[in-house]
């Protein structure tokens, strides 16, 4: 029996206007991602990777086509509705970690829960648990600037998991890490995929990273040119 569809892209186009010139970043993407999957979207720079990640992550809406998140088309939602969906269903991990430097590790992890109006006690409990899960229980009250790159990226994982999202979306997550931290990070990610059944989508140009995925979608010039199954 096939698992439920989490994300479906149907003939998605994204066209940017640079003055008079129209630049198509995505040209008719069709993609289905199911529960529990670990998918890598791979391609060189300029292939439309980032645009695709913005679409899947509900950070932006397509020029044409439909994006279904749990069977809800998000192509025409307002920015505040999109924000709400992002906060609840998608956990982001960025190349630059993107933690808030004025807040401690614990507060950074609590932040997405604040946006979902969770109670304070619940937020503290959950955030502490998540940081323990990524081996940072001794760094709860450190600011990001007091942590190493690998530690910051692990805070970012904890933050991504804060609202129990269906999907974790990672954009070049190891791009700013040395290879040891990069491997450790990917192990954590695989763990969450296997043990907790999280759907994971990684956008990358790095073969090592992509090799952890069950499926690799190769992107070039805004089109999916090949799908590789890893098993």
């Amino acid at each position, binding site marked *: 029996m096939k698992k439920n569809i989490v994300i479906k892209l149907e003939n998605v186009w994204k066209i940017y206007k640079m003055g008079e010139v129209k630049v198509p970043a995505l040209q008719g993407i069709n993609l289905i991602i199911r529960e529990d999957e670990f998918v890598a979207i791979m391609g060189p720079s300029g292939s439309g990777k980032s645009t695709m990640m*913005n679409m899947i*992550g509900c*950070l*932006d809406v397509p020029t044409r086509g439909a994006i279904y998140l749990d069977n809800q088309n998000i192509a025409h939602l307002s*920015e*505040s509705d999109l*924000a*709400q969906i*992002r*906060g*609840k269903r998608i956990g*982001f991990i*960025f190349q630059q970690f*993107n*933690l*808030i430097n*004025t*807040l401690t590790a614990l*507060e950074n992890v*609590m*932040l*997405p829960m*604040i*946006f*979902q*109006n969770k109670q*304070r006690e619940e937020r503290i409990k959950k955030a502490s648990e998540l940081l323990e899960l990524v081996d940072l229980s001794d760094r709860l009250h450190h600011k990001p600037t007091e942590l190493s790159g690998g530690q910051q990226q692990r805070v970012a994982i904890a*933050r991504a998991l804060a*609202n129990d999202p269906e999907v974790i979306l990672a954009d070049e997550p190891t791009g700013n890490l040395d290879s040891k931290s990069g491997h450790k990070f990917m192990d954590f990610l695989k763990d969450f995929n296997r043990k907790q059944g999280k759907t994971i989508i990684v956008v990358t140009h790095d073969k090592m990273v992509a090799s952890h995925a069950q499926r690799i979608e190769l992107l070039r010039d805004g089109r999916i040119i090949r799908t590789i199954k890893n098993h």
Partner: protein
Amino acid sequence: MITELLKYSVSNLWKRKLRSFLSILSILIGITAIFVLVSFGQGIEKFVNDFAQKQGIDKLMMMPGGFGPPGTSNIKFTEEDINFIRKINGVDEITGWMGKNGKVKFKDYKEKYTLILGLSTDREEARLVEEIATIEIEKGRNLKDGDVLKAVLGHNYLIPNKLFKKAISVGDKIEINDMPVEVVGFYGEVGNPQDDSQAYLSYDGFKEIFKEDTFEYVAIRAAPDQNPAQLADKIKERFREHRNQKKGEEDFTIQTFEQAIETFTSVILIINGVLVLIALISIVVAAVNIANTMYTSILERTQEIGIMKSIGARNRFILFVFIIEAGLLGIIGGIFGVLFGYIIAKFGGFTAAYFDLSMLRPYFPWWLIIGCLAFAFFTGAGSGLLPARQASKLNPVDALRYE
């Protein structure tokens, strides 16, 4: 959520200490100025109201129409005038003041020039004068029938080094316009240096020294069943006819005491209002300054805004963050502004009291404090409104990419 929001805002303001401090300073200055000015304005109004309350509202004052300090007008009232008005129905009591600038000399000290008044020694009439001028005998006795070269002096003559090197006491001899006069009493403090330096004679004494018997002011007490304002109109009409003057061309004015005080207060309050307006300009400058600070801060934190949006912050949350930050700048400026304003006003009040201007005593009603704080907060939050709107509408993709 509010606690986190506040904590986050405070840590952001703290991170940009110098800039926050300068914004706070700019609003602080405006609030300090407004607080000081309004507290003095309120003090004056309170002083005048208390004054009016003490005097009651059943009194009318009649003055020569020409405007000028007492003792300088050409138009005077005569005893005949007073007797005419006394007969008008509704007039309960009437008395006149004689007044002229004169020279007071005590022993060999340098002479002083001050207003010398001639008052009635009739008991009822004297009471009317005392009520209006808020004077009361502090030492010695009041003037009485038969007193000619006898005087009662203002409070300041009791204080050494104030008018004369030595204090004057009851029974001392002084000279008024070179005539020897015996001091029989002193009035208590009125609260302004002019009144407290005056000398008072009986009508007979005044006539003896100045060879004049006309009146500078006339005070009237309305009968209990009379409306003072209507009585004023009636007296004005009758007295105009009596003097053969056309309406609008009278050479005298008559006002209820309330009106007289209002005229006096309104001049002071207009001056005060103009000063407050000037202070408001500094608040406008502060608002522009805060808006500028917020715009800069949003530019610096564009990426942070993108991050918050990507992990689920709605536009409304971003809007709140920046409005609260701007509001915090405002309220902090407000708190210190009120604090400094209080200290400055108190200090100003003490200084004024030292120079005998006890009328300039600041008054701090609770609404002034609350009002200044609220005004500071809303000025801050209001200046943050436009920048915050801009921040909340940022597109998350562009904001994340911004460097």
